[in-house]
């Protein structure tokens, strides 16, 4: 009860105080009523089957907020009572030493003796009662999604009680999607129980549905003693469904392939700038990706309570870190080696070793895991056999975003113009007043920064460790070379198609063999077309 103290305060404040107290009191009153219902039901539940049925009826009738939860517990056989005091407990596994949660106040108790607790068992009649009650509750829900879920649970699991509930509600259902599901549920029921004509009609209604129970029901029908005519139709419907499932399976492979391809593009696109545009072989590219991933990790450590925002902060931060390291590499080493690609390759490989060891010394050789923000996890369900994982979707979008940003930078900004000028004719560009050294450093910084951004994306997919970069460097080079050096679009197409090829091969070759096959394919491809998918032709390419 609230403590009420008359206070010498101005009137408006007092009125407010009163109002709050009143509301608190009302809500407490409601709480009290609920508690009372629960107590009554609880007292009935620990007795004989008849009383238990009354308890269920009571809960449903009073529309108690925990009705659904308790009914499910009963259904799953997870509700127990303690013999000493008849208190109800939720027990997942009835083992000595396991935990028992008090149903009323949620406090945990450790089970000392299994014999102290007894399960609240059900008889068949009660089971029907409960499933019907649950269906009704679900079907009455405000949210159409919850209603759809309720119907979906009834698919293939209807009994006489629920059938009548469904038939009652189907006319009142305002949402078409839910209504269709209801039709399906009833059709499955007809398929099992109906005569030939009903069955044929049901098959027609079920045709093309991707709900797994539909497929099961049709398969079961084929094995039953139904008439040949019915079986033929069922077979046709089943074939159609399988066809659709295969189609969505292909879509799913494509989706996985595109997301893997996006990772490849992200990893390779920085290289497409440093290698493709500048002609610098940067073997430390993988380590620049790694630095981006570690930057993400560090930023998450700095703001542990804002995981969702930390990723957004990490993107520019990783870009800056990798870009600065890249510029340092360019100024410190690579600029002395222009025109000597093989030496550049060796020197940058040395740098990659140093960066790896540096990370190992600073962060320990163990992998670090970066948390995935909530808004990135989850599914977008297109239909029962095909859903898109959000994280993959974000990777694809992110990849496209980075790609478009790069194309815009190179095609639409003064820096991009200068970069292209220097890469096409250094001497002429310098004669026109372009500070080619400055452009070199910035271009390299841009490519490196993009590698860092790729690292942010990778940190969401794999563990962050010192070897992260190494495992991507060969893939990155393959993507750039396959696409045609100096061609951003080529990199995009090459990365995505290699990703898809990998995922298409995976089911029958296994992940490792698929990767080997793709590598071998690229090796052979480069023999045939040394300049990649989209070669640069003409005079500039000769030489």
């Amino acid at each position: 009860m609230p403590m009420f103290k008359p206070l010498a305060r101005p009137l408006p404040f007092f009125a407010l105080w009163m109002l709050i107290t009143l509301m608190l009191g009302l809500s407490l009153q409601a709480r009290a009523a609920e508690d009372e219902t629960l107590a009554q039901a609880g007292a009935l539940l620990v007795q004989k089957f008849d009383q238990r049925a009354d308890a269920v009826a009571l809960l449903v009738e009073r529309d108690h907020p925990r009705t659904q939860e308790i009914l499910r517990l009963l259904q799953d056989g997870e509700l127990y009572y303690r013999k000493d005091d008849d208190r109800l407990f939720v027990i997942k596994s009835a083992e000595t030493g396991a935990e028992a949660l008090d149903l009323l106040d949620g406090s945990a108790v450790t089970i000392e003796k299994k014999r102290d607790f007894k399960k609240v068992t059900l008889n068949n009649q009660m089971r029907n009662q409960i499933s019907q009650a649950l269906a009704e509750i679900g079907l009455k829900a405000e949210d159409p999604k919850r209603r759809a879920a309720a119907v979906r649970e009834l698919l293939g699991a209807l009994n006489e009680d629920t059938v009548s509930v469904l038939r009652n509600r189907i006319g009142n259902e305002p949402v078409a999607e839910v209504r269709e599901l209801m039709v399906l549920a009833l059709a499955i029921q007809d398929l099992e129980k109906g005569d030939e004509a009903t069955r044929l009609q049901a098959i027609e209604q079920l045709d093309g549905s991707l709900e797994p129970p539909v497929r099961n029901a049709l398969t079961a029908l084929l094995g039953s003693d139904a008439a040949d005519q019915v079986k033929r139709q069922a077979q046709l419907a089943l074939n159609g469904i399988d066809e659709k499932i295969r189609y969505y399976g292909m879509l799913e492979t494509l989706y996985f392939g595109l997301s893997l391809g996006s990772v490849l593009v992200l990893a390779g696109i920085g290289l497409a700038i440093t290698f493709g545009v500048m002609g610098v072989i940067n073997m430390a590219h993988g380590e620049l990706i790694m630095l981006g991933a570690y930057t993400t990790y560090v930023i998450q450590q700095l703001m542990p309570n804002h995981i969702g925002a930390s990723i957004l902060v990490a993107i520019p931060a990783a870009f800056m870190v990798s870009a600065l390291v890249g510029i340092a590499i360019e100024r410190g080493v690579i600029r002395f080696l222009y025109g000597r690609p093989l030496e550049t390759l060796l020197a940058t490989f040395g740098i990659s070793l140093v960066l790896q060891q540096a990370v190992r010394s600073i962060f320990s050789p163990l992998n670090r895991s970066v948390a995935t923000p909530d808004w990135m996890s989850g599914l977008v369900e297109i239909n029962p056999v095909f859903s898109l994982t959000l994280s993959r979707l974000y990777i694809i979008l992110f990849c496209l975003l980075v790609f478009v940003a790069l194309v815009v930078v190179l095609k639409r900004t003064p820096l991009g113009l200068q970069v292209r000028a220097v890469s096409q004719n250094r001497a002429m560009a310098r004669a026109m007043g372009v500070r080619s050294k400055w452009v070199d450093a910035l271009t390299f910084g841009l490519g490196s920064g993009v590698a860092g951004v790729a690292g942010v994306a990778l940190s969401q997919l794999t563990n962050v460790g010192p070897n992260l970069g190494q495992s991507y460097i060969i893939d990155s080079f393959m993507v750039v070379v396959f696409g045609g050096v100096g061609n951003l679009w080529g990199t995009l197409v090459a990365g995505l198609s290699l990703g898809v090829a990998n995922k298409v091969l995976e089911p029958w070759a296994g992940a490792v063999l698929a990767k080997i096959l793709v590598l071998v394919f690229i090796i052979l491809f480069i023999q045939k077309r040394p300049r990649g998918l989209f070669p640069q032709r003409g005079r500039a390419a000769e030489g």
Partner: protein
Amino acid sequence: MFLMEALKKDRGGQVLLGVLLVLVIAVPLLNLLVPEGHALHVPTYTVTLMGKYLTLALLAVAVDLVWGYLGILTLGHAAFFALGGYAMGMYLMRQIGDRGVYGNPLLPDFMVFLNWDELPWFWLGFDQFWFAALMVLLVPGLLAFVFGALAFRSRVSGVYLSIITQALTYALMLAFYRNEMGFGGNNGLTDFKDILGFDLQADATRIGLFIASALALALGYLLCRVLMVSRLGRVCVAVRDAESRARFLGYRVENVKLGVFTVSAMLAGVAGALYVPQVGIINPNEFSPLNSIEVVVWVAVGGRATLYGAVVGALVINYAKSYFTAELPEIWLFALGGLFVLVTLLLPRGITGLLRRKEASA
């Protein structure tokens, strides 16, 4: 004789062969005759370590042949080395016979473990030393030939070639990690017992392997030297420095490259075959791209296109590696990475280049 001629102007080579000769005579004597505990005694462990270094030096010579003289920066020579090693490892596995953990007279332990009932076809014949020895040459040679024929004919060169050689060894590494390949998967081949009937743990066998390694290095060196002082050697340099000029003079550049590349791969295979019995294990890690690149650095540190420079580089860096990884493991990768950068920036002609310059100015 042409061998003499090949060495006539080759001071480095003369010194190298002289040192090898001294080692072959002195090391066994110091190991077997000088009692343990004496200051001059060479422990068997050191003998084996030196033998291992010599095989790595042979690998470096093979890389120098293609990189130094032909300008092909191969980042996949470890693949040929490892293939030679696996061929030898397969022979050694079959020599174990029924002394394995499972005591199967025919199948190596890992196959019994995988529940295989018969030897895969590609393991047949490896119970014979001559066959294994032939495969040590043929398998790397054939791979290099096929790969080179494809690559050189379509004129893949420069960094593209480097990258696809790297992809080649990477693909092989992934493949050998697979148990289904039949080469012991992750663990590779190990627990060898004897070679040609000699116990691999015995001092005498170890000395024998050391001498064989020294001999292989000497012969490999001479072979490369003879090749490179011939007109072929000059054609190689011509191809390296002005490929299209050589082509317009009528040379089939791709055949030159292919021939030398294949010989080099075979040398690498021999090196791998001698390496494996001395370290006692071969596993897919040997294929790792890092290994191949490390070899290139040995050559760069020693000095390109000299052959003996490759030997010097291999010995110096591997000694340093043994020292650092034992004493200061944290430092090793920093040192190696720094070395890559320093050598390419400051020492384009390597250690031996420094020595030669001093000699020339003196």
